[in-house]
């Protein structure tokens, strides 16, 4: 079937979609957007986090046709041309990226968190990131990145 949706502000469509395939698969394999990562396909790791109508969700758990007519933002949609999003910059600067596999999901999640709750305290940040797993960093540098990005966005 054909699925038409808005991805990163642009109208897109994908053909030959199997109705039970995930939005994650459609984005990566049919729409050429491999930034969103696939690590578990069971909602556990958060590496596939995208914004669906403005809310962070696991793209692996959305059936692609459920996204028809909806608005999807992936990690590719955060930077404006060559200008990285403040969250992306903060991740680079604080060393919050090691292998990088968890990074796109975290960046999307953190960008949403900072937009909603710019003054989130550490407990709120941990709560917001509870669904994003990282096997490399031990999370401390990620928390540093969140604090840095939040401070910059606030100032």
């Amino acid at each position, binding site marked *: 079937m054909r699925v038409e949706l808005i991805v990163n502000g642009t109208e897109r469509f994908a053909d030959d979609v199997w109705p039970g395939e995930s939005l994650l698969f459609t984005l990566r394999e049919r729409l050429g957007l491999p930034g969103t990562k696939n690590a578990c396909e069971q909602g556990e790791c958060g590496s596939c986090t995208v914004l669906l109508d403005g809310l962070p969700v696991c793209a692996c758990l959305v059936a692609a046709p*459920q996204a028809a007519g909806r608005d999807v933002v992936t990690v590719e949609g955060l930077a404006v041309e060559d200008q990285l999003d403040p969250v992306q910059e903060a991740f680079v600067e604080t060393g919050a990226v090691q292998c990088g596999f968890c990074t796109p999901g975290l960046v999307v999640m953190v960008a949403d968190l900072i937009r909603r709750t710019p003054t989130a305290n550490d407990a709120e940040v941990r709560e917001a990131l509870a669904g994003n797993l990282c096997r490399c960093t031990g999370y401390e540098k990620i928390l540093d990145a969140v604090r840095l990005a939040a401070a910059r966005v606030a100032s």
Partner: protein
Amino acid sequence: MDFLRPTTWADALSAKAEHPDAMPIAGGTDLMVGLNFGQPPPPALLDLTAVGELAGWDRDDGTIRIGAGVTYSQIIAELARECPALAVASRTVGSPQIRNRATVAGNLGTASPAGDAHPPLLATGALVEASSVRGTRVIDIDDFFLGVKRNALAPDELIRAVRVPVAAGPQQFAKIGTRNAMVIAVCTVAVALDPVRRSVGTGIGSAAPTPRRAVEAEALAAANLPWSSGGALAEDLARDFGNRVAAAASPIDDVRGTAAYRRHSLAVLARRALQWTWAEMTGGPR
């Protein structure tokens, strides 16, 4: 596989009547895991997320009618005062990403003994509104769970809403798991006090083939709590209540915990939940 995407409730019911083997999909947080892992696909998916009528809740006298499309995130943000136990349970579900999609109706559809919405629904005497082209019936939550992952819905029925009485008093939900997020419960307990009717509601999860109430514990607490004086909750009563809740369970050993551990923790959680709710009601120490 077909994909059916009605945009009105009437069309959704017709679609289900024409295709009784179509599998409803709401948040997809149970269903998609199965599909991603190669479970045999159903002949059709019936997507309910485009049905506008399901997306909200409304209040009718003393009842909150939660539409089948309402997510845990909405319950947490909008219904913490009206449905406190359900809101606390909702906060423990998965992660923010999961809570932004997953619904109570989906939890009921799956009818897992570990579903976290179920104990609060049992403790508060909720009703499940099931509809088909034949009409609507209201299923008492006590009659809804038939066995492990089996519920009372007929093949042509869809859940329209869940009706939860507005809390008459303090409510609590407690859950044991290996971390604070993203865990299937080892066991759960919900307690709801109703000072007007002087009754106590309970629900336990991951403790038996279905979620269930602990009826004898309810009766014990209702008869012995110092409702009139509003005095302190006796330590013995709290402990007996916990033990009766544990006695109502028929837990199993599995990868998440042993039956013995589950019984022990049910007793502890139930005792604490009663203490917390009583303290909240009477302004006493927790």
